[in-house]
């Protein structure tokens, strides 16, 4: 079920009415669990088996780990691969077999290719990572095992964040599931704010940029101005698409008294790659930091190892997005940026503090980020090479680049305005840490404006969110 569908609006209305009528978690949680399973199974009920399997494994491992450290270690060693195997089979198996099949002839071997042609269940990377994170947290003693199966299954399947995050932590979401939720005027205000803002980002910004991106990237022989405009449009399309989904998810959860993790914080004003990953898909960055980078040794095992850890983590992060060479390249590109930045910081430990220097850093890093989106968006290596060559050698068709840029600008500017207003409304006051909105009458025209923008400029042909396939 898509957030940007009329069916979801009806579904949400029924869920909210039933949820608040039930009053206590004892009744609310089973109700939410059923609603979440219905939400996920709406498009393909067979995939429910996968998510239930992952939840059962993680639930059992959590209990075993808590019962006995010795058996718990074994349970973890079995449980984590058991969950990740679902991800491997459904997401990576075809890629693995294709890669093996295409490379074996190089060493004189023939391979009879047997490829499982399986549909990719939506959100599989999100709920498997959430389940794996839970098992490790319990093993490390960071979170207690959840004994109530309903509460635990709700943790894995909670519908607002089920298919595209944010990737929640046991220490953050499970306590909220256990306790009685309240709902005050700030929840209502923030919830509505986030939902409206999310729909503007998705239906207006991302979906109106999509045709521009699709039509430009339908050609292999673009010139530099057109590549640049296409990449700029895609940078804001993917930001609107993914952060819009996150905003809607957080807003919907907020209307039920839940506070989901922040996932985006104006990523395009990042001045360096470290800052970017503290602003873009924050919950995935933190997941890889805590469960991959730090266990690999993090910053603790000497400079060479740090750089290797950074690269390994980012390549895995790229691979998380999809079983495709271009995602690995994208991860490696960002790994290289992180390594470059780290070396730069070693050479110049004192960061520049002037506004001009920060502005220049933002401009340079934004350019690199936007180039990186090419590796994310374009799946053909030949096309990536062709576009990259064009950026350095072919600046013809500049006049078409200019008019294309003007076609894209209204939606880019809208994204900037929405982000700036959000930062003022939800982040810039002393109450930032609590994300409590100061309820001001000025919000009324803003809400009205957001709603009118959705009605008038929202695209009805946008379709799925990009991150659903990850």
């Amino acid at each position, binding site marked *: 079920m898509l957030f940007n569908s009329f069916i979801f609006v009806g579904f949400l209305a029924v869920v909210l009415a039933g949820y608040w009528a039930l009053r206590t978690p004892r009744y609310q949680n089973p109700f939410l669990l059923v609603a979440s399973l219905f939400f996920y199974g709406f498009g393909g009920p067979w995939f429910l088996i996968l998510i239930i399997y992952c939840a059962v494994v993680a639930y059992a491992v959590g209990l075993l780990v808590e019962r006995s450290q010795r058996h718990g270690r074994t349970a973890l060693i079995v449980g984590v691969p058991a969950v990740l195997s679902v991800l491997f089979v459904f997401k990576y198996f075809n890629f693995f077999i294709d890669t093996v099949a295409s490379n074996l002839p190089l060493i004189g071997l023939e391979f009879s290719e047997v490829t499982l042609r399986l549909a990719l269940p939506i959100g599989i990377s999100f709920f498997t990572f959430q389940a794996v994170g839970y098992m490790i947290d319990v093993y490390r003693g960071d979170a207690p095992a959840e004994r109530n199966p309903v509460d635990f299954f709700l943790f894995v399947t909670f519908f607002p964040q089920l298919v595209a995050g944010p990737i929640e932590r046991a220490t953050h979401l499970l306590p909220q599931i256990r306790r009685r939720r309240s709902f005050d005027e700030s*929840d*209502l205000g923030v919830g509505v704010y986030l939902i409206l803002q999310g729909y503007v980002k998705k239906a207006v910004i991302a979906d109106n940029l999509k045709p521009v991106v699709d039509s430009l990237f339908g050609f292999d022989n673009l010139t530099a101005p057109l590549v640049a405009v296409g990449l700029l449009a895609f940078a804001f399309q993917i930001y609107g698409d993914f952060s819009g989904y996150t905003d809607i998810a957080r807003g919907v959860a907020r209307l039920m008294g839940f506070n989901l993790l922040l996932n985006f914080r104006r990523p395009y004003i990042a001045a360096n790659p470290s800052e970017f990953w503290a602003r873009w898909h924050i919950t995935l960055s933190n997941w890889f930091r805590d469960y991959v980078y730090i266990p690999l040794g993090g910053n603790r095992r000497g400079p060479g190892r740090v750089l290797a850890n950074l690269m390994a983590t980012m390549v895995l992060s790229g691979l998380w997005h999809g079983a495709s060479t271009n995602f690995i390249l994208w991860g490696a590109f960002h790994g290289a940026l992180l390594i470059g930045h780290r070396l730069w910081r070693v050479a110049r430990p004192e960061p520049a503090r002037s506004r001009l220097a920060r502005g220049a850093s933002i401009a340079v890093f934004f350019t690199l980020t936007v180039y990186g989106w090419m590796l994310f968006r374009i799946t053909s290596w030949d096309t990536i090479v062709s576009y990259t060559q064009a950026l350095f050698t072919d600046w013809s068709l500049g006049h078409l680049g200019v008019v294309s840029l*003007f076609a894209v600008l209204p939606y880019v500017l809208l994204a900037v305005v929405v982000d700036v207003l959000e930062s003022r409304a939800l982040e810039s006051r002393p109450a930032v*840490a609590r994300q*409590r909105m100061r*309820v001001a009458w000025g919000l009324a025209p803003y*809400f009205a404006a957001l*709603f*009118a923008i959705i009605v008038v400029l929202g695209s009805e042909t946008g379709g799925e969110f990009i991150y659903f396939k990850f």
Partner: protein
Amino acid sequence: MKTVTDAPAAPATPPPAARVWRSKTAAILAVALVLVAGLELVARAAVEPPESFTDRLVVPPVRDGVYLVGNSMFKTGVDVDELRQRFPGEPVDFAYYDGHYTSLWYLIAKTAFAEPDTRPGLVVWGFRPAFARDPLFRQNRPNATDLFAFDDPDYLRLGDAGTGGSALASIDAYGALADSSVLFAERNDVRDWIADTANRAGVSVLEAAGAASGADLRERVVEGDRSVADEIVLQLTGGAVQLTEEQVVDDVGDFVSGPQRRFADGFIPRTARAFQERGLDQLVVIWRPANAIDGAPAPEDVQFVADAIAWFEANDVPYLNLYDDPRLLPEHLASGDHYNAQGREVATAILGDRLAELGVGSG
């Protein structure tokens, strides 16, 4: 990093529901809704409600000559300039509505060409047999043109009968919104205005910078009917592809639904009769779709075409059977059933020959 979501939980005891809804936030939301309603009322006052659909049907006055009425098949399949060159003494004009089908031709036949100053010498219209499966009025986007109202109970009855799929799928939420909100119904005009303003700004920047291409783009994109995307396609293909349509790969599939109708139950014979009743000459083009070109025509399409030809011959309706024409080949296809520049050249030549047979250009 400290994030705004590291927040402590909300208070343990919830306030009473009644108190929540009396809160200031609820009042603010109510004010926001009132503002939206106010905006809607202002828009209603600003937008002139159409009196009837004939007032909104844009078919320019035309006398004599050839008038083509069609959808994207005509847009990508007929080179109007080529026809004008072939028949220099005959005005050749057209009105294309992307994504529309036989129901619209019926509507146009009944209304637009009924006006005394809109009397072309010959009307060319056509269909693909596959789209007889769902003669419901449909468009690529709701209200993409200003033609969406129907006053004919007979039309509505035909439409109802064609509805297929589940009850959920049949809910036309966008249509209902368009009916109830002027803001929603007018949104395509707003988008077009934004795109037009952006184009003008871009061209003005080019002109201010002294770029020679500025004037050319102003003529073609701002004042002409070409889009920026069309210009990009034209340049990147060295003129081989004229329209964006030709390089778009359909990603949503076709939109045909429901069982195929029998020929006699659809709009095509009604449309042909409507032209006959108004004393207008016509030529009906039966398009050759991709599956026929690829040698795997749908059996129901073959039957439909046979029925159509039998009916046209029995009722003296001139037709052009491209469906069975082997001159249209796989390399003539662009996207879906649409033709590319080569296909357009072939189809236009065949159409021109048929028009000549019917006396066009003979004085």
